[in-house]
């Protein structure tokens, strides 16, 4: 199934809004609490997943390809969020 122009545009708008939301959250600094680290990285992970699925069309690949990128995405998210959260 090939991604339509409409789906691509909805994805783009979602990515733009999510990017601005993460920026606003982090700009609030330490006032928001350290849980914001996880929220910011979850937003990054969802954005990366959307780029892989809709823009790169990873959904055309086999389960093995999807699993490999799922591992990569999960590892990067957990690594960055975890080490920021637990290392003060």
């Amino acid at each position, binding site marked *: *199934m*090939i*991604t*339509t*122009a409409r789906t*691509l*545009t909805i*994805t*783009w708008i979602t*990515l*733009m809004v999510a*990017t*601005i939301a*993460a*920026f606003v959250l*982090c*700009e609030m*600094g*330490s006032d*928001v609490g*350290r849980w*914001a*680290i996880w929220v*910011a*990285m979850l937003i*990054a992970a969802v*954005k*990366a997943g959307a*780029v*892989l699925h*809709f*823009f*790169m*069309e990873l*959904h*055309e*690949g*086999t389960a093995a*390809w999807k699993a*490999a*990128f799922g591992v*990569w995405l999960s*590892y*990067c*998210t957990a*690594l*960055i969020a975890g*080490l*920021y959260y637990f*290392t*003060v």
Partner: protein
Amino acid sequence: MQSGKAAERGSVNFPSIWAFILADCFSFAILFTIVMTERIGQADLFDKAARQLDPALGLINTLILITGSWLVALAVAAARRGDGAGARKWLIAGLAVSSAFGAIKLYEYTTKISAGITPITNDFFTYCYMLTGLHFLHYIGGMGALIALVFNIDFSKVSETSALNWIVSVGIFWHMVDLLWLFIYPMLYLLPLI
């Protein structure tokens, strides 16, 4: 959706470039691991140094890359429909928008270096220049590939397998530049603010 074996071999729907993309992504994961483990024990230094970066410039660059990716994705969608003129138009639009990323990155590098902040200032900036520099090389490669597409593809024959495969493959590479930045941006610019 094609069969599993066809997807493994590589085709217009799932080209062989995915193997390169996966290897590149895992290479960056190793770099992320090095940076994040080096931060342990000197988190205060890393976070103070990171606050010398401008998160607003990082935000603008992220929005530029996302928009460039969207425009290239529209070019691929047009090519798949056999709309050669549309594909070329979206590729040129993607190039135009994405060129702003390079301009802003060069502005960032020159202002930092002229302020005396270089790769040897401290560990944070060593890794900051390394990560963003390697990413920038990928950006240059992607821009070069997009320019090569615009000038070398016969867009009147965009439905032919060879032309379409090139457009889809370069598109996937370009999205990877966006994909990697989606992790570099919070790691260097955003999370140190919290």
